[in-house]
């Protein structure tokens, strides 16, 4: 009796499930579309009313944002704002880097009491490669003249070679035609630093007496001799020494602390007048 009842239930359930599957199939293939439309219309209308009410009550968003057009517009606005903020971020990062660099320069300027400086931005480099030089955005209007030393907080950069009203070309100490009289920090020996034409900051120390002991890591400063540069401006650090007995003097490889490829700001010493010593070289008649 119970089995019959159970079987009849199963048959009924199976029949109804089968009916559902038939309805699903008819609906999936669109055969019930007219009936569905009729039945769904009032439900959809009521749903819309309820939806609007709940959206108003529950949503903190502006109702206009519910439409696709409004969302697209908002998306476009947000993308534009993002682009603007990214531009601003890049500019602010650049300012932060400039700030760090300028504050270091300011510290250096504060530490050198006897020298007056003009700060200049590097606006160009020698495009032909014949000489190692940079172009800065200050000129005669700012009081610059040919021969003025150019430096940074890390050391000597070079000297002004040519100058216009608004710009000046600076011959770097790495240029092959640059010669700077220098003094070794520990041994106090003198020599000349000549550029090697490399932008890496590698220069050569020449004409150091053979009996002077040069050690790697020793610092080199301008000596002030020759009258082209003020004394005690750092040049760089000795990397290696080549002491050949057959030579009359010894040489050393020196590396400047400055990365000349990324130089962006320099200080120009304006209260230093290069001395013209050629008058002492000519014998008086």
């Amino acid at each position, binding site marked *: 009796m119970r089995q019959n009842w159970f079987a009849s239930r199963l048959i*009924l*359930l199976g029949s109804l499930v089968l009916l559902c599957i038939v309805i699903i199939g008819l609906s999936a293939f669109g055969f019930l579309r007219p009936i569905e439309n009729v039945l769904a219309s009032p439900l959809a209308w009521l*749903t819309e009313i309820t939806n609007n009410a709940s959206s108003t009550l529950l949503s903190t968003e502006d109702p206009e944002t519910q439409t696709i057009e409004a969302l697209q517009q908002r998306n476009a606005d947000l993308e534009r704002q993002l682009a603007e903020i990214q531009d601003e971020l890049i500019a602010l990062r650049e300012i932060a880097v400039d700030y760090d660099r300028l504050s270091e320069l300011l510290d250096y300027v504060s530490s050198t009491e006897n020298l007056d400086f003009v700060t200049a931005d590097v606006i160009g480099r020698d495009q032909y490669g014949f000489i190692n030089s940079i172009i800065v955005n200050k000129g005669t209007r700012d009081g610059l003249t040919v021969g003025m030393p150019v430096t940074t907080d890390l050391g000597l950069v070079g000297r002004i070679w040519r100058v216009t009203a608004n710009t000046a070309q600076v011959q770097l100490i790495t240029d092959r035609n640059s010669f700077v009289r220098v003094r070794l920090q520990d041994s106090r020996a003198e020599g000349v630093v000549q550029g090697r034409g490399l932008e890496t900051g590698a220069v050569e120390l020449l004409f150091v007496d053979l009996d002077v002991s040069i050690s790697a890591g020793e610092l080199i400063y301008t000596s002030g001799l020759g009258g082209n540069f003020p004394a005690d401006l750092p040049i760089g650090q000795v990397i290696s020494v080549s002491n050949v007995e057959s030579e009359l003097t010894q040489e050393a490889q020196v590396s400047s602390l400055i990365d000349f490829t990324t130089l962006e700001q320099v200080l120009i010493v304006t209260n230093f007048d290069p001395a013209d010593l050629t008058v002492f070289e000519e014998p008086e008649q």
Partner: protein
Amino acid sequence: MGYYIALILLPLLAILENSVLIDLQALYAPLYGQPSLVLVAIIAWSWHSELTEAIFWAFVGGIASDLLNPIVPVGVSVIAPLVMVFAVKTIERLFYQVSIFTLIAFVAVGTILHHVIIFITFSSQGIIVPLAEYIQSYSIVTLAFNILGIMPMYWVLRRIQKRIPQRQNPWAVTPR
């Protein structure tokens, strides 16, 4: 009388599911499950109703849900409540006394069955559903809501059932 109540109550619950409850999902995003009011109501009502009336409830509720959900064909949401109605009436018949908390188990099984059917339907239509995400974000949340909601729903519907006059249905299948 239960038939008329089904025609009014179940479409209203389906409307609530498709409007208010969807908006409420924003409160617990990124989860997006919601209570299956229709399924819970059908199971709760079937506990003390005749089989034919419960079957009617299953069809009305399932079809109302599917009419408001154009993604699935009409009839998909009928199967799970239908099976659960038969399960409820069978258990009721087999055991002399069944705890009301058994309803929770029925709701859990019904919810899982309904989601399995929905998943099969989507798959057969070529809709790719990420199963793990579907279960984690939707099915489990829905299951939790349904389990929490069955008792209040039963409490409300039982009071309605007690107030309406019971009528002998000539097509009733339930043996006396």
